[in-house]
C-alpha cells in the first residue's frame, strides 16, 4: 500500500479546508488535501447564499456593526459562543477577508454605476455575483487557487480513519479513493479536520450527499472531546417537492437592493411569517421562523414535512430577479416566481456543535489533530467564519511545526484499517440489507425522534432503535457487488458506521441539555434556562464511556437579560 509523507494533511475541500491549505502553502509547508467529494463543489460552502458585511465595511454605521455582531451571537449561536473569538473574527472579516477575496478576482456584485449592491437594514450583506448563489463562484475560485498552487490533492477520496502514533497522537490518515478503489496512507505532522457543518443524518438534510458526520465519528473514535452536539439548526423554507430539492431554499434573508423578502403561509392560507415584519434583526431569521412554524404545527395548520407554503407572491418579480436566484425553483417548475407559493418543509441544517477546540489554536483535545470550520463546536454557520478558521489553524500549525512529532503512525494501524475496509466489501449471501437501506433507516429514525420536537422519551426511543440497527442490521449488511470502481455501496457501508456513531453521540448530548434554546426544542424542558445552561455541553471519551462537563460561557458584550423563560417567548 502506498504511503504518502507530507507536512500537513487537510481533510475537506470546503471554505475552511481550502483556506487552511492555501495559507499553509504560503508558509512553505507541504500539504496534501483529501476531499470526499470534489474540492469546492461538495460540502456546505457552495450553498453560501450571501456574504455578511462585518464591522464598518462599505459604510456600515457603528450601530450596523454592533447589530451584525449581536446577530451572530444571539441568532446564530444562542449565546453558546466565545464572544471574544467572535470579535477577532469580525475584525478579520473587516480588514482582510473581503480585500483578499476581491484581489484574487471574486466578483462582489455591483450595479451599473459601480456601487457594491447591498441589502438595506440593520445587518447588510453582499453577494458574489448573484444572491443565493454566492458560494458557487466563491468556492470555484478556491478550487482554482488550489489547482494553481499544484497542491497534491485527492478527490472523491474518503478518509476512513485518523491514524495514531505509538504515543497516542494523530500522525496521519487512511484514505480510500472510491472511484479507483485505491487505499493509501498519508503520514503528516499535523492533521486538519475540516469536514463541515452539516451532515445527512436526517431524512431531510441540507448537507450534500457525501456528508455523513465522518469528522465527528472518526475524531470521537480517536478520543477527541465534543461540545454542544445537540445544537442543530433547522431550515424552515426548503422546497418540499421534489425530494431532491431539499436544499433548494426559499431564502428568508433580505433581498439585495430591495426592502422585501419571503413570506410563509399555512394550509389555511394565513400568512404566519414575513421576514421584514416579524424579524426585528432583519437577517436570516431561521430560529424565529422555526418557532412560528412550531405554533402552526401545534394548530394543525402545517406539518414539519410540508403543508405550508413560501414565496415572493407579494413582491415585484423584477425585484427578485435583479440580483438573486430566488425564483429558479418556480421557473423550473414552469411557474412564474412572483405569483406562486411553493410547498416547503423543514430540513436539518447546520450543527452548531462539533469538536471541542481551543479557538486560539484550533487544536482539538487529541495531540496532532487540528480543526477548521463547521466540524468544530466553537461557532455556527457562515462561510466567513469557516474561512477565518482556516487562517487561524494555518497560523497555529506553522507556529507548532517544529515541535510536532515526525514519528510514523503505528504500523499495525493501517493494517487494521485495511482489513476493516475490505471486510465491508463482502457481497456473498443475500440475507442482510444493503448499506443504502440502513442509511435510510437511520435517517428516518433521526427525523421521527430527533427532529424539531424532542423529549427524553423520543430520544431514548431513537437510541433503542439505533442500537437495534447496530446489533442486528449492521453485522448482516451486504453489498450487491464487490467491485472497487465507483462502488457507492462500499462508500455507503463506511458511512453507515460513522452515522451510527455520530447519531448516538448527538442523542446523548441532546438528553444531557435539559432546556430548550433557540432551535433546540425539548417538549419536556420548554424553558430557556440561562442560569444552568448558558454553557458548553462537553462530552469526553473515557475508558468506561462518556463523561459530561458543563462550562458556562462568558458574556462580555452581549447578555440575554433573563434567567429563565419559555423558549417560544424568546426573541432569538
Amino acid at each position, binding site marked *: 500500500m502506498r504511503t504518502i509523507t507530507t507536512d500537513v494533511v487537510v481533510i475537506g475541500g470546503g471554505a475552511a479546508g481550502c483556506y487552511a491549505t492555501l495559507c499553509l502553502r504560503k508558509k512553505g509547508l507541504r500539504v496534501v488535501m483529501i476531499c470526499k467529494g470534489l474540492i469546492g463543489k461538495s460540502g456546505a460552502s457552495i450553498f453560501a447564499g450571501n456574504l455578511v458585511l462585518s464591522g464598518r465595511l462599505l459604510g456600515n454605521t457603528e450601530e450596523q456593526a454592533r447589530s451584525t455582531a449581536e446577530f451572530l451571537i444571539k441568532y446564530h449561536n444562542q449565546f453558546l459562543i466565545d464572544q471574544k473569538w467572535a470579535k477577532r473574527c469580525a475584525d478579520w472579516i473587516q480588514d482582510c477577508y473581503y480585500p483578499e477575496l*476581491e484581489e484574487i478576482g471574486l466578483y462582489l456584485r455591483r450595479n451599473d454605476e459601480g456601487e457594491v449592491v447591498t441589502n438595506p437594514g440593520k445587518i447588510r450583506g453582499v453577494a458574489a455575483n448573484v444572491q443565493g448563489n454566492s458560494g458557487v463562484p466563491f468556492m470555484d475560485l478556491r478550487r482554482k487557487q488550489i489547482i494553481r498552487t499544484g497542491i497534491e490533492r485527492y478527490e472523491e477520496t474518503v478518509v476512513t480513519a485518523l491514524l495514531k502514533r505509538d504515543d497516542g497522537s494523530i500522525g496521519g490518515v487512511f484514505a480510500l479513493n472510491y472511484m479507483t478503489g485505491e487505499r493509501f496512507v498519508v503520514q503528516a505532522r499535523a492533521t486538519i479536520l475540516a469536514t463541515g457543518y452539516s451532515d445527512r443524518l436526517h431524512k431531510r438534510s441540507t448537507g450534500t450527499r457525501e456528508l455523513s458526520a465522518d469528522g465527528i465519528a472518526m475524531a470521537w473514535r480517536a478520543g477527541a472531546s465534543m461540545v454542544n452536539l445537540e445544537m442543530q439548526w433547522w431550515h424552515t423554507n426548503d422546497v418540499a417537492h421534489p425530494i431532491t430539492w431539499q436544499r433548494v431554499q426559499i431564502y428568508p434573508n433580505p433581498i439585495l437592493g430591495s426592502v422585501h423578502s419571503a413570506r410563509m403561509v399555512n394550509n389555511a392560507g394565513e400568512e404566519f411569517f414575513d421576514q421584514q415584519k416579524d424579524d426585528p434583526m432583519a437577517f436570516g431569521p431561521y430560529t424565529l421562523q422555526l418557532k412560528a412554524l412550531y405554533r402552526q404545527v401545534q394548530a394543525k395548520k402545517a406539518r414539519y414535512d410540508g403543508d405550508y407554503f413560501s414565496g415572493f407572491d407579494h413582491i415585484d418579480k423584477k425585484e427578485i430577479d435583479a440580483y438573486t436566484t430566488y425564483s429558479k425553483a418556480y421557473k423550473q417548475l414552469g411557474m412564474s416566481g412572483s405569483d406562486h407559493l411553493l410547498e416547503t418543509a423543514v430540513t436539518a441544517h447546520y450543527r452548531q456543535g462539533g469538536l471541542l477546540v481551543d479557538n486560539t489554536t484550533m487544536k482539538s483535545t487529541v495531540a496532532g489533530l487540528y480543526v477548521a470550520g463547521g466540524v468544530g463546536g466553537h461557532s455556527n454557520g457562515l462561510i466567513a467564519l469557516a474561512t477565518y478558521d482556516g487562517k487561524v489553524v494555518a497560523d497555529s500549525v506553522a507556529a507548532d511545526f517544529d515541535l510536532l512529532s515526525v514519528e510514523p503512525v503505528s504500523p499495525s494501524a493501517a493494517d487494521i484499517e485495511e482489513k476493516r475496509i475490505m471486510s465491508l466489501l463482502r457481497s456473498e449471501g443475500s440475507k442482510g440489507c444493503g448499506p443504502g437501506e440502513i442509511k435510510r433507516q437511520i435517517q428516518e429514525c433521526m427525523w421521527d425522534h430527533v427532529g424539531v420536537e424532542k423529549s427524553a422519551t423520543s430520544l431514548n426511543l431513537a437510541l433503542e432503535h439505533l442500537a437495534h440497527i447496530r446489533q442486528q442490521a449492521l453485522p448482516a449488511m451486504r453489498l450487491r457487488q464487490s467491485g472497487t470502481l465507483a462502488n457507492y455501496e462500499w462508500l455507503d457501508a463506511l458511512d453507515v458506521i460513522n452515522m451510527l456513531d455520530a447519531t448516538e453521540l448527538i442523542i446523548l448530548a441532546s438528553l444531557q441539555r435539559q432546556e430548550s434554546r433557540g432551535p433546540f426544542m425539548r417538549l419536556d424542558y420548554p424553558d430557556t434556562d440561562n442560569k444552568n445552561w448558558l454553557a458548553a455541553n462537553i462530552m469526553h471519551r473515557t475508558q468506561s464511556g462518556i463523561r459530561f462537563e458543563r462550562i458556562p460561557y462568558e458574556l462580555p458584550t452581549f447578555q440575554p437579560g433573563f434567567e429563565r423563560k419559555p423558549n417560544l417567548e424568546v426573541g432569538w
Partner: protein
Amino acid sequence: MNIVPFQFKPSQSQDSLLARNTLLKLGDIVKIQVKRSEGGANNYQSFEVPYSQHMRVLDALNYIADHQAPDLAYRWFCGSKMCGSCAVRMNGREVLACWEAVLPEMTIDPLRNLPVIRDLVVDRTPYEKRVASYKPWLERDEPYSGFPEPLTHRDMKSVSKALDCISCMACYSACPVIGLGDLTNFEGPAPLVQLAQTMLDPRNGAKKVASTLESIDIFSCVSCYKCEEVCPSHIPIVSMIIEPLKRKVAEVHPEKARHALVFKSIIARRGWIDPTELVLRTQGFKALLNVRRVITLLLRGKVNPVKTLFGRAKVSAAAAARFITKDKS
C-alpha cells in the same frame, strides 16, 4: 430498404417547462432504461418507478438505487443545481439530473465525450485538465487598489453570466465539435465559459489575456447553440461568452480571426458577401486546387466570376461602409 418513419408525439406540440411538469400524475409509472457498464456495450436495465410530486431524474435514480439496483453508480452531491456533478443524458439530451423533470419514458445514458468510469459516472479529469491548462485566474497589471475596487456591472456583464457556470459538463457532452475528437483543438463550450470568467474581466492584465488567447481554437465553434440549449444555468454561451471571446481574439491576435475579418471587410466593401471572394481570401489559392469542384460549381452557376469581379450593390455597400468599424491595420 429499411425505412424508419418519423413518429409524431403529442408532447412535441407543447414543449414548455410547464407542460413537462404536468405530464405525469401521482401514482403514474415512469419507465426508465439505464445504461449499465457491466454486461456489454448495449446493456440497458429497465426499471419502473412510481411518480412522486415534481419528480426529477435524480429522484428516479435515487428510487432505483433505494429499491431495485443499489449497485447503480451515478454521481451527485447537492441535488439543487449548484455542484454540477449529476449531469446525464435523458433520451439523448444532456440534462442535470437534479433539475430536470422526469418523462413518462426515459433512457438514461452517461455524458458523451468523456471516459465512463462505471454506469453513469464519467471521468471528469480530461475536462478539469483542459480548464486548468488555460490558467484560469487573474494576473493583474496594476496592483489591487483595495476593497471595493472600481468596477461596474456593465464591465462585468458577460463575466457575470460566465460565473453562473457550475461545470456540469452538459454542454461539453452536447458539443458536436468536441464530438469530432482530435479533428480540431476546439476548447469546448464549458472550458470557454470558464476561460471567459477571467479573459473578459477588465481587471485581468493585457499580457495575461494575450498569452492565454494565443493558443486558442475558438473559431472552430460552429455556432450551433447546442450548448445553450442544454445549459441548466441558462448561460447564453454563444452570444455572451464565445462571441465576446472571439472579439477579444480578433483584437489581440487578428491572424487567428482571418476568416471573420475578411468577412467583415467584404461586407464593408460590397454590402453583401460574395462567397467566392470569401473562400479565396480566407483559404488562398489552394481553394482552386480542387479543380473538379471548381468546374462543377461553375457549371451549376454556384460561382459567378463576373459578379465576383464586378458586382457591387451601391446603396447597400454605402450603408455597410458607414456602419462597419474600420480596422486599424
